């Protein structure tokens, strides 16, 4: 079997006295779609943010595509990476936020071309051609010149997905991508994510959408209290949970 794309080993993280992650071990294979479920405060968003070093871990290690995230090992010592090295690692990992975080002063097209032009130093023409393709892919080909404030929440989130894809990531992270949306707009974002999954993208999705997890996920991870309580195929975890905490959570949300 090939090396997993993501490997987390005993990941720990505290905010002050509060230990949010208490030893996470998880492996995710290439092309796999993993949905992370759990009550709020379970550490699932923090874990996701640690994968691209938006939050730094205190102990353990996270490997993505053969790279140790945020740190460098030499002669048995662990050193923090320099900011530009961390920035380089992040380019292989796309991130989609709960509140979209589009750049409000740039059009949909400019939101997508910003990093390719200024980070990857692509030509403006190449970046724009690619951005138009990506906008077509998320069904927003006609909204290129719109500013975020002129788009609906669902449209904004789809632009945010296109923006993350513009750097050709090997891994996509979704942090509750539909939680800030009006109910009637959730579907269009989930559809875009389904398309992405069927194209073979490796995805880690922190979500409350049980239906999406059941339909799209290869594996469901249930987190509570800073640890992975159980994980497995959606059928097993969602329909026949082994742990009482998983059962309790599912009973509340379904």
């Amino acid at each position, binding site marked *: 079997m090939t090396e997993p794309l993501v490997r987390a080993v005993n990941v720990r993280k505290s905010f002050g006295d509060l230990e949010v992650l208490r030893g996470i071990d998880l492996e995710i294979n290439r092309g796999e779609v993993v949905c992370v479920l759990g009550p709020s405060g379970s550490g699932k968003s923090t874990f996701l943010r640690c994968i691209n070093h938006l939050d730094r871990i205190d102990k353990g290690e996270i490997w993505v595509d053969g790279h140790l995230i945020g740190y460098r090992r030499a002669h048995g010592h662990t050193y923090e990476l320099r900011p530009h090295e961390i920035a380089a690692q*992040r*380019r292989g990992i796309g991130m989609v936020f709960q*509140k979209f975080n589009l750049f409000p002063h740039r059009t949909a097209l400019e939101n997508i071309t910003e*990093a390719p032009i200024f980070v990857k130093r692509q030509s403006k023409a190449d970046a724009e051609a690619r951005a138009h393709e990506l906008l077509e892919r998320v*069904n927003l080909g*006609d909204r290129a010149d719109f*500013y975020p*404030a002129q788009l*609906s929440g669902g449209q904004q989130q789809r632009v945010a997905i296109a923006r993350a894809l513009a750097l050709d990531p090997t891994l996509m992270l979704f942090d509750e991508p539909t939680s800030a949306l009006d109910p009637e707009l959730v579907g269009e974002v989930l559809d875009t994510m389904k398309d992405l999954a069927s194209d073979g993208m490796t995805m880690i999705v922190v979500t409350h959408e049980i239906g999406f997890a059941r339909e799209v996920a290869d594996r469901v991870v249930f987190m509570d209290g800073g640890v992975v309580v159980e994980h497995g195929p959606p059928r097993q975890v969602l329909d026949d949970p082994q742990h009482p905490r998983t059962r309790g959570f599912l009973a509340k949300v379904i």
Partner: protein
Amino acid sequence: MTVPSTSTLTRANEQPVDGGRIRPVRHPGQWIGVAAILVAAALFVQFLVTNEKLRLDLVAGYLFERSVMRGLVLTLELTVVAMVLGIVLGTVLAIMRLSGNRVLSFVASGYIWFFRGTPILVQLLFWFFLGSILPVINLGIPFGPTFVEIPTNVLISQFTAAILGLGLNEAAYMAEIIRAGIKSVDPGQSEAAEAVGMSRMLAYRRIILPQASRVVLPPIANNTISMLKLSSLVIVVGLPELLTAVQLIYSRNFQQIPLLIVASIWYLLLTTILTIIQVRIERRLDRSVTGPRPVIRAAERQGTPS
């Protein structure tokens, strides 16, 4: 339930007579106010035109006088150069203060503390008299050999002292304005910038500062207008800008009021121009928020709900 005075409320069976046309609330007070203002304005104009002691003929005569023109140009030069220095250095100081690096943050706080905490008059005079406490400026290795020696008085002219005094002081105030602007930008923005692999500096340049500029523009315009008039302090280093130029004239001919009107007319004109520039930049920066939606041509319309 308590019901307010019933005289203004509609009875259940009241029917509209003119198809239900809605008449807006009337504001008779506004018309009385307008009338009062018009009367006051007419009185003021009459006072200006009929009062011979105002010597409006002198105002017209001195408006384009050569020393007044030179003072006006100097006021403009000082304001522009000091504000550019203030904004550039202020931005650097604001970013230093907000950086996680304690040394940078401490240095920036110390700078702001010192330059806001001492009178600007003292700072102007300090730069001007620097030569008396530090006659020569040496460039070289500290405590080691010197490569270049420049007499301080050569390096710091009256104009340089004025710019250092006004600009370095302005930078301290500007740093706090820009810091407030940066903090007004949603933290999610720098996270999104970092997530697409931007460095801190690139994120500031492309994402954070452009958004902060919308917030800091009005206070920057404030400070620029204030600098127009603050620059008259440079008389202490012997530079005659606009206000000093007219003071020099009325100290000879004792026509204080007409000459002060001359200076005020120019200050008002400059302030008007600055305000127009401010409104234009603001409108440009607000385009992304309040601008019109682009038109979608039917040919490229897709089945997207909007």
